């Protein structure tokens, strides 16, 4: 089977200003927040990503879609260098965050990760209290000057993640006693607490009921005023609802990257059309 992988230049033109659902899209082009150039990624000898180039714009929501195993998580994790700790992993190409090469020698990975926050595909609360989970990033980065400021930011983050009401009376109980969906929102709150610039979310709503999912979607919508959001999702409706741009991955390649309405109504690639209409994947 042959298919045309869109060139990076095409993506940029595809993303030029036209009318759209989101008024933000009608304004002047936003600044490029993440600029990925010819990125390939290897787990040992296995190539998981192949020559990916794309630009993610500030203050928009960018969704990654594609069948299971196509490399969405891998790609997301290259953006905050989370793959660094995987033995035998190797990367080629460039990732620039605000114009600075994330993989240049001398880059402070800790600073980079503080700026590029992440919510993991599998929720991973620490075996600490609910409060301590959210306070963790604030504490280790020295972001709260006083106890009351710390408590305030913990509360604010839990509210943003639509969790406050459920946990406000049990902040000092173990986070592991929460339900799966609550744990997922706790991990979102934990990532928000340190106020990163960019938030990478790997299927943040996969274990949530429709109401919590809706809260998260509203949260994502609110957050994009201040943050740049990249979200992986298997839910086509969700991608269509919340994202401005959508990237479709297939077998480690970027097949198409364009405005979300175009991807879902009039994709340029046959493969994309087959996927979004549910013909495979």
């Amino acid at each position: 089977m042959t298919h045309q992988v869109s060139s990076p230049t095409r993506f940029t033109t595809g993303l030029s200003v036209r009318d759209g659902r989101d008024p933000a899209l009608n304004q002047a082009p936003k600044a490029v927040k993440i600029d990925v150039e010819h990125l390939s990624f290897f787990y040992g000898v296995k190539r998981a990503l192949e020559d990916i180039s794309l630009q993610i714009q500030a203050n928009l929501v960018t969704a990654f879609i594609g069948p299971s195993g196509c490399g969405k998580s891998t790609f997301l994790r290259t953006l905050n260098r989370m793959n660094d700790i995987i033995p035998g992993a190797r990367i080629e190409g460039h990732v620039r965050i605000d114009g600075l090469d994330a993989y240049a020698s001398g880059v402070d990975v800790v600073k980079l990760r503080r700026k590029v926050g992440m919510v993991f595909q599998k929720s991973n609360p620490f075996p600490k209290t609910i409060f301590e989970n959210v306070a963790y990033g604030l504490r280790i980065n020295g972001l709260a000057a006083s106890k009351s400021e710390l408590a305030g930011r913990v509360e604010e983050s839990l509210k943003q993640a639509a969790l406050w009401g459920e946990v406000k009376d049990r902040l000092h109980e173990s986070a592991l006693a929460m339900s799966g969906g609550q744990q997922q929102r706790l991990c979102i709150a934990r990532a928000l607490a340190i106020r990163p610039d960019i938030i990478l979310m790997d299927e943040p709503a996969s274990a949530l009921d429709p109401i919590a999912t809706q809260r998260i979607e509203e949260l994502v919508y609110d957050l994009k005023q201040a943050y740049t959001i990249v979200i992986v999702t298997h839910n086509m409706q969700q991608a269509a609802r919340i994202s401005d741009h959508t990237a479709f991955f297939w077998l480690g390649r970027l097949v198409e990257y364009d405005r979300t309405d175009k991807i879902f109504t009039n994709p340029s690639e046959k493969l994309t059309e087959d996927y979004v209409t549910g013909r495979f994947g």
Partner: protein
Amino acid sequence: MNRDRLRRLISSAFVGACALAVLLALVPLAMVLFFVVRQGIGSLNLAFFTSMPRPVGEAGGGMANAIVGTLMLTGIASLMAVPVGVMSGIYMSEYAGTWLAIALRFAADTLNGVPSIVIGVFAYGIAVLPFKQFSALAGGFALGIMMIPIIARTTEELLLLVPNALREGALALGATRARAVFTVIVPAALPGIITGIVLALARIAGETAPLLFTSFNNRFFSRALTQPISSLTVQIYTYAISPYDDWHRQAWAGALVLVGFVLTCSLLARIATARIRRLRG
């Protein structure tokens, strides 16, 4: 019908065999406890804890000096072995696969298998001969050497059980590697590590051979680190091989106290572990 009966028969035979095995394993333990209690309880009174050994022929007396001595020796051993053991455990799990970690693990396993009398001779050569003096320090040193590999290997194994997702969670919030280890990974394994330490303590509290050449024995009450010191095990040994009935009774009482010490340690470890677990999950 017949097959069903056969299946049930085999099943109950298997359950029966397992129950029997459990019983067989418990019988020696129960018998040891029973004999120690039966023989020791008669000579055990307040005076046993508060008074000093009496000369031969004089009835009564106690092991106050030996009880304090054992507490001091195990204390010195822990002060030495807990930091060294836990740190090497952390190193072995964090840098698993490096040649130093592999060498460390091999050394720990070997040291674990060295007979305690050999450890005693070694400690004699290194901590007694140069100072021409038996001492509490030398005894604690010998016991500490026995404790280190046990603690190191337990710590390592427990740390390796901590899910990698927790480490990733901490790193993604801007923790350095060391920070992640000390604020997330070690705390997650802490209940198990504490249990390991206490079990190591219980194990070395019953050692006699390494003390014979190091802390030796002391008929008097001593709290000096640089003087020979009495210990329950050496005192039990001395009394048990003596020809006097009264001393035999005292030896049984000493054994009972030692068993009580070990049981208390295990119990305390359980309580501490349960409390930490309840606090944080």
